[in-house]
């Protein structure tokens, strides 16, 4: 049966508008005086001054609105390759240097996590040198840690920070000691992402930081949201992609750049003559993992429907955690959902798996066959209450 138009609502149709060529204004949207030099979101024009001021203001507003960070708090800043991280450093430095009451009054500590396994020795050294140089140009020290070494030995954070060797030939083997070699790329990505978060929290705790800043921007939020839904992490959307992830009792992870798009930050950097960190990108097949496919999907849909990313982010903003969930997942620390429903997809999948592997006694009547199977199934309590749905699926890939 054709299911097109099954649920139609004229409110939401306007959000699915195709990109049309709108006439661009020949004065800045903000000051209405100057000639514009930049177009954002395909329709808003700004002059250089207004654009720069607006951008900084947007950053301050996202921090200020949350009222989370207080005087003298220490904040671990995760510095990554690309434009967003550099813009973030610039926001921080200019904010700290202000002599007005609006001055930022917390202490950022910068951390670069080395996990670029496609680079050779020379390229790796260059990357580290460039990172050091760029971060010091903002008056900060750059701290380093190797992801592979952390994963091999998570208790050893104090010795791993700023160690002499950040990468080695056997880094990938080190990872394979923890993540099973035959894991799908999707599961590998999911596990790496969990481990990275754990690393940030452990380093933050060691350096007595109450907060971590990560440089995710709107398109990252949108594609992470869709990826997480596809992995079964729908109930954690508000902490996975929201502004604040407060799963840990001591450290909160914040995403101060989540409302920005890449063009904004790349041009912000350009006008401020800032250099960003970049590396040779290895070719990735977008169909090799759920995460890569979602990134490709969002980028392409955004081209034709410019409201895609903001709509997805807004949808995420409207979701929250289940208040009835009391148990925290052992792996990801997210709440383990408790369902009111009589039957769930988790149960159904387990039943299907069970039924596909059970021999049926054809001599018994249909009803008897079913009740035998059902009883047997009910007895096999294969739901691990200590892990959430998605972590249950990747737990087998951990070699612990």
């Amino acid at each position, binding site marked *: *049966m*054709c*299911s*097109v*138009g*099954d*649920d*139609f*609502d*004229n*409110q*939401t149709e306007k*959000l*699915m508008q195709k990109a049309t060529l709108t006439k661009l204004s020949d004065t800045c949207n903000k000051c209405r005086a100057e000639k514009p030099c930049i177009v954002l979101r395909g329709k808003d024009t700004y002059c250089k001054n207004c654009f720069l001021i607006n951008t900084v203001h947007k950053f301050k507003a996202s921090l200020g609105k949350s009222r989370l960070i207080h005087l003298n708090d220490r904040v671990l800043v995760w510095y990554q390759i690309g434009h967003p991280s550099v813009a973030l450093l610039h926001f921080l430095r200019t904010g700290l240097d202000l002599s007005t009451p609006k001055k930022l009054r917390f202490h950022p500590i910068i951390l670069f996590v080395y996990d670029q396994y496609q680079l050779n020795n020379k390229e790796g050294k260059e990357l580290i040198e460039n990172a050091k140089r760029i971060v010091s140009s903002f008056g900060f020290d750059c701290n380093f840690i190797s992801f592979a070494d952390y994963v091999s030995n998570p208790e050893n954070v104090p010795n791993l920070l700023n160690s002499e060797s950040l990468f080695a030939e056997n880094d990938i083997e080190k990872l394979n000691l923890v993540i099973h070699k035959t894991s799908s790329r*999707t599961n590998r990505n999911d596990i790496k992402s969990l481990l990275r978060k754990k690393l940030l929290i452990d380093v933050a705790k060691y350096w007595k930081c109450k907060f971590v800043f990560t440089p995710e921007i709107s398109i990252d939020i949108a594609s992470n*949201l869709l990826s997480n*839904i*596809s*992995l079964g992490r*729908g*109930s954690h959307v508000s902490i996975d992609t929201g502004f604040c992830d407060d799963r840990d009792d001591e450290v909160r992870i914040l995403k101060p750049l989540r409302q920005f798009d890449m063009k904004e930050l790349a041009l912000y950097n350009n006008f401020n003559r800032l250099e960003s960190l970049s590396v040779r990108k290895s070719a990735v097949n977008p*169909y*090799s*993992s*759920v995460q890569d*496919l979602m990134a490709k*999907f969002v980028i392409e*849909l955004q081209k034709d*429907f410019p409201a895609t990313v903001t*709509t*997805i982010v807004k*949808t995420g*903003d*409207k*979701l*929250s*955690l*289940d208040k009835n969930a009391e148990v925290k997942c052992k792996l990801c620390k997210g709440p383990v959902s408790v*369902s009111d*429903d*009589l*039957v*769930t*997809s*988790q149960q*159904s*999948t387990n*039943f*299907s*798996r069970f*039924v*596909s*592997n059970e*021999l*049926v006694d054809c001599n018994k009547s*249909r009803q008897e*066959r*079913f009740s035998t199977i*059902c009883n047997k199934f009910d007895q096999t309590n294969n739901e691990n209450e200590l892990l959430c749905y*998605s972590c249950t699926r990747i737990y087998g890939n951990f070699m612990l």
Partner: protein
Amino acid sequence: MPSKCSAKCGRNAVLKRPKTGDSLCKECFFEAFENEVHFTVTKAKLFKPNTTVAIGASGGKDSTVLAYVLKLLNEKYDYKLKLFLLSIDEGITGYRDDSLDTVKQNRDDYDIPLKILSYKDLYGWTMDEIVAEIGRKNNCTFCGVFRRQALDRGANLLKVDYLATGHNADDIAETVLMNILRGDVARLSRCTSIITDSGDGIPRVKPLKYCYEKEIVMYAYFRKLVYFSTECVFAPNAYRGHARILLKDLEKIDPAVIMNIIHSGETMKVSEHSKMPTLTKCTRCGYVSSQEICKACVLLEGLNKGLPRLGIGKSSKVKRILEENEKLKGASCNGEDNKCLCSGNDLKPSKFNDLKI
């Protein structure tokens, strides 16, 4: 060397089921598939005994398999249900004619009574006539709105206790993705429910909710069930197409994604601060709606008054135009020869308002 059936019956496997990755022989697959639907039906307490169930039948694979399996389970497990096939004739030449023939064959093959209701009966317009009037740009909107109401109205007319539809796991996963893409949090919170109430007291149930589309196709194939499969001639590249392609690509990477998305939909919670639309009853026809005048009445108003874009756009505009029309009503819009004074078109009789429920 063919592999053996994973249920350890000794037979050779003939298919690999996407839902779990297990290889099964034909017989064990039938048993597993049917057991799973029975599991869903019983655990979710979908039906009460001694009730009547209308099965939304389009002649497509989902409704054919639904009809077959419900009939089978009804007999084997003594659900004590009275089953009907309910079919809607949209009046699309070439599409519906063939699919209705298939439904009639299902009626004969499965020995289940059939009731056909047409858009012409319910609304006074066939889809062919609507497309002739408005072109192909928004025809799916009309069809979808009318069809959704038609099934409910049909269920009401037949005075059944339940309406069962063939929505499968792929459909539901796709709907979850669609609702995220278009920011419809209200629908997002409802679309994974196995039982939904359209407000008039007749629950809509989805017994095939956890069945993979691929497995439905395999079941129909191996059971040699007859069904009609083709694209509606009017269906354009709807936005939903993007979600569909995405889902198919995801399934190729890992078929478990379909159940993962449904799980996400089932477990996500809407924040208390989000505004959700409240439901009321349409002032024209009594159907449940979030607006004062339901979508179908709005669209019909447009068709009947030669305003084809009415209902395709902002609701505030719609309200204003309807209010203006209300004022004109007293002034009698039609001339003596039954033609519209504004456009000169013949006025089509609308039996729609007679169906006050």
